[in-house]
């Protein structure tokens, strides 16, 4: 079981960085912040986390009334600001969560947005995270889905939870791809992620995949177990200790179900 956990943890959202950041990304960032050691690793770890959770931050900025383009610019500027000024070095160890840290930092950043804008115009920010068109489109779609929420913090938490679940699924897909089982993943995805179409009967699907029904059941059971591990691994990347994983999962569950 432990091997499975490590393998999943290493998938890194489809990017092969597992050898560099084998365990908790956020704890690595925190440690680097405290000791000033290995700043490149910390910065890279933070940059990767920021990519995954770009959408919730963008949604929060949008909820403050900024236009699409302004929100994109501000979100990018925020990440650049965090990385350039090593804001993570000031993270409160007691809070222990990347989510809390980012939201608090973003609020501070936005409160000073006008000054920040002037700084940017003077060429102050040199570090940029790549922003892909699809990423921006999905983030806007996520924001539109929740734009009716009146509480901006809840909007952020909910978007974060959604990004987390999606990232875990992407992580699992990357694992299956690496193992040459992408097609199997696609066929069984609905047993983990639901979907619009009703799932076929096991016998029917087994027949289509030309495998025994019992084998199919094993595949489904294994897929579900691996998703559970992928989700835990994803949460693990954003908290500073193993004990916080369940706590974070519990909180995110409440965020997603209290709607």
């Amino acid at each position, binding site marked *: 079981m432990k091997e499975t956990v490590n393998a999943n943890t290493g998938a890194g959202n489809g990017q092969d960085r597992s050898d560099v950041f084998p365990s908790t990304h956020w704890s690595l960032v925190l440690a680097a912040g405290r000791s000033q050691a290995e700043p490149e690793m910390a910065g890279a770890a933070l940059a990767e986390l920021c990519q995954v959770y770009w959408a919730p931050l963008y949604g929060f900025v949008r909820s403050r009334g900024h236009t699409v383009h302004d929100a994109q610019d501000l979100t990018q500027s925020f990440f650049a600001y965090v990385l350039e000024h090593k804001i993570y070095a000031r993270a409160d160890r007691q809070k222990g969560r990347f989510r809390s840290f980012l939201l608090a930092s973003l609020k501070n950043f936005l409160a000073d947005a006008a000054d920040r804008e002037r700084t940017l115009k003077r060429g102050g920010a040199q570090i940029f995270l790549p922003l892909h068109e699809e990423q921006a489109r*999905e983030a806007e*779609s*996520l924001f539109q*889905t929740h734009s009716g929420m009146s509480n901006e913090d809840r909007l952020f938490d909910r978007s974060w*939870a*959604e990004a987390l*679940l*999606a990232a*875990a*699924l992407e992580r699992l897909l990357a694992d299956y791809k690496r193992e040459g089982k992408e097609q199997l993943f696609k066929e069984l*995805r*609905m047993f*983990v*992620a*639901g*979907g*619009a*179409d*009703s*799932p076929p*009967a*096991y*016998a029917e699907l087994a027949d289509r995949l030309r495998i025994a*029904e019992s084998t199919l*059941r094993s595949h*489904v*059971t294994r897929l*579900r177990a691996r*998703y*559970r591990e992928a*989700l*835990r691994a994803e949460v693990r990347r954003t908290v500073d200790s193993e004990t916080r994983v*369940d706590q974070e*999962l*519990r909180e*995110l*569950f409440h965020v*997603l*179900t209290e709607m």
Partner: protein
Amino acid sequence: MGKPLASGVGVCSMCGKPLNAKGDCLACLLRTGLEGTGIETKPAGLAFGDFEVEQHADGSWWELGHGAIGVTYRAADKVLRRRVALKVIEVPPAARGSQAVRDRFLREARAAAALRHPNVAAVFQFGTSPDATHCYYAMELVEGETLAARVRRDGPLNSKDALKIAIQIARALMAAADHDLIHRDLKPSNIMLTTESEVKVIDFGLAKAITDAGGEMDLTRGEFVGTPTFASPEQFGGGPVDARSDIYALGGTLWFALTGLAPHPGKTLDEIRERKTRDGLPVAQLIARKVPEPLVKLLRSTLAIDPGKRPASARELMEAIQSCRRKLTRRIGASSEETAFRSKAFARALTNAKACVSDPESLRALFDSAARKASAISKKPFKQNWAYLQTMLRLIRAYYRGEYVQVSDDALVWIIAALNYLVDPFDLIPDKTPFLGLVDDAHVVELVMGKTRRTLDAFMTWETAVR
């Protein structure tokens, strides 16, 4: 990707929750992700008035169906302590404050509740949520499947079976006419086929009463609510809609039953409207399925573009259908006798099964005996059914241990009857006819296979989740 709701959001076929932009269900992802963590994932109760939506063992809502305008759940009537089918419809935001819409819904709901007929799923109660965002009504819970699901699973029906269904729908329309009620959204997914092959029409009038939001504005806005495929041409034009629209929809439904296709399919509202009003009927589909001429003639008349050329009333429609049936009966010399239960051996197995369900000792004896016999008999004659047999045994074991109770008594009877028939543990079946695929009675095979397969599938899903 997802089936659109009125708001344009897709819903999950497993739990009815909205899908995200990638077509994934966050609720399902979350539930899967938290399995075995000890975190309580069972959501708080979902209730509308006196009705509480039931949940599966994994905490998901017990959804019976979902469409463009709402979700139907299996629910418990807390007052009368009975199970119902609860349809919950989101009221369009523009209609929430409208007294006209509320009055119209109440008027239709009262008329639907007054309609009592064996071929209509009775409406027990209706209401709106306190914040006026949802309307709901509780209907008789019908055990079975929709005509759409039946055709999707087993393919098109033969003329005789399709006509039997059409006659029962026409009876429902006649009863509705007595209450000045029209359905307005008749389609294969609104036709329930019970386990006893009876027809029950669901959703009379109500759904459209809410979603039409007080007029034909849906059409003028280009947002036809519901399924336009089976709607009459006049429903697209905003003209007066009367019983002849339901007759047209019945024609389309009958066409679908016979061919597995809609007469005028299309991807967009405009495309469907164009085809309905411009194109002739694709009669080649009927010819390909060898649909007899009298039935083709009946379909031509019910699907006429001009309402004046259709049967003028449900009663006239019934006469046309009966006339068609008489012609077919003469032509093929078919008997209209019910043949589903002509196998005496299976009837006996069914009787035994009924006795077993209500008596734990008999059930235990049946199980022990069947398990012994199953392990002793050669697998060869049962090659095709071996997996079914093993699953039946596992289901019954789980049932009488109290681990698996999500099976209705009715479904359990069929499972036990099938098991009984398969291994005949008490040596009660004299002819020892083997089971599925080998028994010389297509009706019995169809009934048993359909019911047992669905029940066993549900059980296997539960097994997988538990494991």
